[in-house]
């Protein structure tokens, strides 16, 4: 697959000012609410430290806790599967369904199933899949992936949704009223939920000591997906395991406050065992996680609890929209995760950042996000993934800037025609600077020349 050009995709998103402004304001509101929520918890920073330590401890003993989880879950009557990659995961899901002649699946939002492209896999094999999360269902109807890991359709305005529902359900396209639209969705999706032969959820946490899957939702859709059908499947990334229920308390306090500024969601559900006469399957999925755990610099992204605070605070994400990243995970956390899936396809993502560091500061599990973005840039260089034109410009700049005499020649040719300078100071091949901003003009003389004229008598140094 070709390299994702996030910058170009962002231009397309920003062409329509309404959406850019809508997303920026909505997500900045989330960031503000996060700040307010954090300020009401005096021990906020200690919680972050603790959460980070629990995750690091668990990841350092991952095999131990996964096996503990497996044995406790099996003792609860759950069937536990292990999947090495996306394909194996999808095969397992498909066989669970097809062996039981289940031709319809209702599922709640799960980024892992996005990662595995599970919906498409099952639909290609004749299984009807219905997303039950409102935002995810909107994206399904629009045939788009989620643009945000907490609010999959947050880039859409209510008008967009009204138009979409009018197409999909014949509702009133001019009635951009959230309550009305909520009812339209409910009427059209409830029946599918009731008919569903099987239900599927992801997991926010998998508690090793109890064998429980924990989901954190507002709409209760994970509960419907998990509890209405007799057959229940939970897909869980290996890194979602935590040791104890006690640890869960730390994460629950951080997760929703970081995500939306709410103290807690409407539903924090523990799925422990199959319902009476039912079946429950848990699939523990690796899909690149264990190899990421072995990456000296890049394992910390496995601590992520998917709160999306880094996206909400990211000034680049807010202007570009999540779809511009062309990836399952987007924004700052996406930039550091996606190259572990495909280093070539996502080779440009580490450059879609100003390295401002706000992401690192809001991360509830203290992932050093912006430092990893910077470190990925080096990897892209070492792997030869940096565009030749950029590499050449930087090679030329490095040549000039490491030789004082060349630099002085270049600097003096700034007057009158600026031929050399923009190339290495602004990397201005395509006049990219000047498209939306006035170009700075060089000074009448450089500081260097001014100094020679005005201070050289006291400096007493050799003139280059």
């Amino acid at each position, binding site marked *: 697959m070709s390299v994702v050009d996030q*910058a170009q995709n*962002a*231009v397309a998103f*920003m062409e329509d000012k309404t959406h*850019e402004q809508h997303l*920026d304001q909505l997500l900045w509101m989330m960031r503000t609410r996060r700040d307010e929520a954090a300020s009401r918890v005096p021990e*906020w*920073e200690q919680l972050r430290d603790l959460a980070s330590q629990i995750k690091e401890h668990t990841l350092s003993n991952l095999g131990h806790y996964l096996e503990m989880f497996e044995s406790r879950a099996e003792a609860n009557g759950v069937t536990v599967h292990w999947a090495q990659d996306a394909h194996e995961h999808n095969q397992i899901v498909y066989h669970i369904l097809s062996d039981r002649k289940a031709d319809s699946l209702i599922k709640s939002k799960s980024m892992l199933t996005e990662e595995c492209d599970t919906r498409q896999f099952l639909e290609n094999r004749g299984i009807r899949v219905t997303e039950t999360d409102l935002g995810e269902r909107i994206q399904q109807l629009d045939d788009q992936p989620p643009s945000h890991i907490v609010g999959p359709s947050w880039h859409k305005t209510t008008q967009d949704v009204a138009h979409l529902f009018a197409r999909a359900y014949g509702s009133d396209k001019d009635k951009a009223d959230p309550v009305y639209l909520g009812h339209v969705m409910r009427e059209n999706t409830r029946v599918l939920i009731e008919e569903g032969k099987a239900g599927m959820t992801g997991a926010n946490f998998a508690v090793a000591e109890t064998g429980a899957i924990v989901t954190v939702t507002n709409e209760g859709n994970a509960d419907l997906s998990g509890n209405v059908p007799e057959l229940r499947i939970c897909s869980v990334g290996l890194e979602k395991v935590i040791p104890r229920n006690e640890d869960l308390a730390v994460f629950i306090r951080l997760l929703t406050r970081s995500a939306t500024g709410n103290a807690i969601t409407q539903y924090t559900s523990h799925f422990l065992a199959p319902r009476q006469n039912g079946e429950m399957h848990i699939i523990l999925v690796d899909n690149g996680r264990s190899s990421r755990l072995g990456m000296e610099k890049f394992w910390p992204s496995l601590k992520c609890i998917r709160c999306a605070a880094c996206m909400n605070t990211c*000034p*680049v994400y807010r202007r*570009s929209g999540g779809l511009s990243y062309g990836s399952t995970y987007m924004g700052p956390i996406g930039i550091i995760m996606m190259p572990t899936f495909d280093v070539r396809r996502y080779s440009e993502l580490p*450059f*879609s950042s*100003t*390295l*401002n*560091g*706000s992401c690192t*500061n809001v991360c509830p599990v203290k992932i050093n996000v912006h430092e990893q973005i*910077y470190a990925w*840039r080096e990897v892209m*260089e070492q792997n030869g993934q940096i565009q030749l034109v*950029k590499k050449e410009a*930087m*090679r030329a*700049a*490095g*040549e000039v*800037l*490491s030789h*004082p005499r060349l630099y002085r020649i270049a*600097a003096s040719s*700034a007057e009158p025609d600026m031929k050399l300078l923009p190339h290495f*100071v*602004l*990397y*201005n091949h395509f006049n*990219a*600077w000047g*498209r*939306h*901003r*006035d*170009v*700075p*003009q*060089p*000074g*009448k*003389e450089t*500081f*260097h020349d*001014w*100094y020679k004229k005005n*201070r050289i008598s006291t*400096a007493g*140094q*050799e*003139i*280059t």
Partner: protein
Amino acid sequence: MQVALMIPCYIDLFYPQVGVATLELLEKLNVDVVYPFDQTCCGQPMANSGCFEEGRATEELFIKNFAGFDHIVTPSGSCTHHIRNKFTAAAGSPERRKVSASVYDLVEFLHDVLQVREFPWAKFQHKVALHNSCSAIRGLGLASMSERVHDRKFSKPKSLLEHVPGIQFTNFERVDECCGFGGTFSVTEEAVAAKMGYDKIGFMSESGAEYIVSSDMSCLMHLQGCANRLGKNLKVFHIAEILNGVAL
């Protein structure tokens, strides 16, 4: 006290007056300023683009020029951050450790080392939007960060500027959101960079500011370009110019 003055490449070329103001200010404070003549750049433009290899010789040149000094001062938070925290050349060598430990952004040098609290020669009777760069805030810790809601609130640039008679600070929204410069980001992702700059200019303009003051000229280069394009009458000054005294 002897200090080696490091003038970042873009200040040398585009904003020599900022270099002059830095030099004059240090001289007024009785600092013995040496300007190493063979200096060019800290290597950040290359490293920032992922081209660590291409930047290494420039970093080595920097180390060669500056390793002999106990204090290196530069009017740039981002260069300081690069030299202190991000150099990859000569890793582990005593010279490399020396320059990384000796480099100071002008603000922290004035605030923490010289502990200057008076600028009797300066006055600035205007409304100012103070912009701190992300390198200065989150890289060097020159001001408290909005995300760290429980930290003590402080701003070293502001506590210096507060001693300039007449200066008034405006309050604007999203005070420490990135302005969109971001080094080579400003050209590789120019559309987003410019939008961030436009938004920043919008907030500052709404606050009634007449001038934008910062300790990072690179942010100001970007913001001035945005303000001019938007037709906003906002002018920029480096903090060194204000502290040294500007005649308007």
